[in-house]
């Protein structure tokens, strides 16, 4: 085009062949990517080396490279693991138990619902749904304002609801469908946890379950259910109906199909969803702040409490942050293998 005069410039700006980039473009791309990699990694690097510093290394201004700028020391690690001992290990164990069980429950129950929404048609009456909510509101009012015992008001509410279903309810014909139910479940995510957590706090207080594992497991599970339903629905919808019908004819029951055919095929989706929910539960802060004080305290609370209890002792804090990050990265590594293998099956099959 421009002839020989601009030859060297063109060599720089135009790609060698159709599948690669021009040298200049490549340089810019690598430059930007490397810059962002530094933005991502530097804070983590700083936390890691801070956990190996003595207080004097931190307070004397920034020292960057271990063994050259300063001698790494394990004193902070020893303090956190041996001197504090149980005060670190208990929240750690709490976090593991709570994150694990809430993830398993959320993925299990959420997958069931997602599968049901893909495979069955639901047609509840719109009026019944509205009536249910109104009656629920009446139950709340009776419990709090009229001061009835909660079991009594729930019983009255149920009686009212069945009365409605069998009388007035039959006269309304408008119905809602699967998409409405799905939207309703997913829209729960819009609900800010701070709105729900006050009554949940009172409920668990009444049941004497505050500051226990169960309270946090159940709450995290509910909060994460919408995500599971939303993600798993697409995976289930992509499994051919033929397989399921074939299994039905082969004599399998619904639950044999779900466990023997559907779940194994949705493994990549389950792995990805579990990882996502696990990260959310592991890192959750607000609900734990409300619902746990001492016995069920989780790691984010422990980390957050550091500053309050003893000022900016960055070295101890860094150790806690590092031990919080490592298990998640390990989990991601393990599940990554699963995800890759699952995708391979999908690719060959399709």
């Amino acid at each position, binding site marked *: 085009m421009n002839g020989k005069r601009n030859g060297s410039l063109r060599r720089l700006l135009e790609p060698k062949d159709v599948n690669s980039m021009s040298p200049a473009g490549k340089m810019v791309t690598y430059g930007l990517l490397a810059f962002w990699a530094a933005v991502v990694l530097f804070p983590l690097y700083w936390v890691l080396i801070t956990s190996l510093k003595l207080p004097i290394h931190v307070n004397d201004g920034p020292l960057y490279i271990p063994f050259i700028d300063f001698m790494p020391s394990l004193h902070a690690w020893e303090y956190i693991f041996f001197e504090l001992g149980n005060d670190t290990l208990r929240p750690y164990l709490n976090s593991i138990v709570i994150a694990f069980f809430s993830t398993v429950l959320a993925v299990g129950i959420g997958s069931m619902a997602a599968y049901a929404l893909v495979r069955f048609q639901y047609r509840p009456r719109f009026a019944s749904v509205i009536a249910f909510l109104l009656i629920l509101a009446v139950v709340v009012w009776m419990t709090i304002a009229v001061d009835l015992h909660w079991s009594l008001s729930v019983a009255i509410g149920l009686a009212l609801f069945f009365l409605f279903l069998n009388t007035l309810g039959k006269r309304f014909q408008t119905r809602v469908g699967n998409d409405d139910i799905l939207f309703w479940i997913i829209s729960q995510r819009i609900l800010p946890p701070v709105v729900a957590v006050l009554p949940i706090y009172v409920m668990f207080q009444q049941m004497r379950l505050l500051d226990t594992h169960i309270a946090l497991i159940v709450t995290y599970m509910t909060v994460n259910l919408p995500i599971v339903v939303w993600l798993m629905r697409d995976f289930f919808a992509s499994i051919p109906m033929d*397989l399921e019908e074939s299994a*039905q*004819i082969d004599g399998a*029951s619904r639950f*044999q199909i779900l466990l*023997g*055919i559907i779940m194994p*095929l949705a493994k990549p989706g389950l792995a990805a969803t579990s990882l996502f929910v696990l990260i959310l539960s592991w890192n959750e802060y607000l609900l734990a702040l409300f619902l746990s004080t001492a016995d069920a305290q989780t790691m984010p609370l422990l980390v957050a409490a550091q500053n309050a209890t003893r000022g900016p002792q960055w070295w101890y804090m860094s150790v806690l942050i590092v031990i919080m990050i490592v298990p998640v990265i390990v989990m991601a590594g393990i599940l990554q293998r699963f995800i890759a293998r699952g995708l391979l*099956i999908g690719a060959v099959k399709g």
Partner: protein
Amino acid sequence: MTLAMRNIYKSFGSNEVVKGLNLEVAEGEFLVLLGPSGCGKTTALRMIAGLEAVTSGDILIGGEDVTGVLPKYRNVAMVFQSYALYPHMTVAENIGYPLKVSKVPRDEMSEAVRETARKVHLEDLLDRFPRQLSGGQRQRVALARAMVRRPRLFLMDEPLSNLDAKLRGYMRSELKHLQAELGVTTVYVTHDQIEAMTLADRVAVMEAGIVQQLDTPRRIYDDPANLFVAGFVGSPPMNFITGAITGGAFECGGAGLPCPGLADNPRAVVGVRPEDIRVTGAGEGWLQGAIYSLELTGDETIVNVAAAGTHLISRMDKDFDMPMGAEVGVEILGERSYFFDAESGERLRTASHSGQPIAFSDGSR
């Protein structure tokens, strides 16, 4: 096992896809449901399997009413068009799945799996996964899975349509052989009339949710009940010429064709199979036209002649040699022509041989 479908109706919303289906299938019979896509044949099969609920009517398997019974209790086996092999199971696990879910003891199960696999020549592939198999092998796994327990019925939904032409021919004969050997009553759905003609003891030709004709393949071909069956069965398809019947002769474009004994009809159609039409020299024969195209298929030449405002297809032998565009005449052999009412599509018959084949006696077994 026998199968009976009595007065079956099926609608999806306001869309009625099966309208009053009545079928009786005898023990060990191979019945083919043949029809274009959307004619309700697959829905009918799925209702037999229990995958769709009937809107009204009864289904009986072996005399037992199974209309409302779940698929898992019907004890029928089905081969899907996509084969529906479980991708996460090996061939052996796939074949053994029906036995596994009914809790057959392990050793008995592996024995049955091996025996069935041998029948369909899969014994060397038992440890493979479906994704490592060729199309034909997958097809045989699906067959084996259907055969492994002794089902009361085999149901097959276009099982050969995903295979290439050569393999399809081979699997067709294999299927026929296995069915005869096992003696299990089979209902087979296809839109491919060659499959229907070669496999079936009887064929039910369906269109728009209604069985148009239920008969042996030979009679479906030689004695079509109406315009639809006549046009659907046969390749290349039957030629149709529209005209009128007056005084025992079919008239169109000035030429007449004798049809003794038929009542006068102002709008009638005559149908002639390509093998019953001969292309002759210009000026000879019944109609005059020009050659539109020629296709040499190897053992014969398909000649397309533009005549009487339409295209007529003729099957000539492979030595037929005339240039495209040449003026020719068209001659119809013997009495092998079929007359239909253009409005209703019904076959027009003389009083003497109504319900009888025209040229052949009943050749079914």
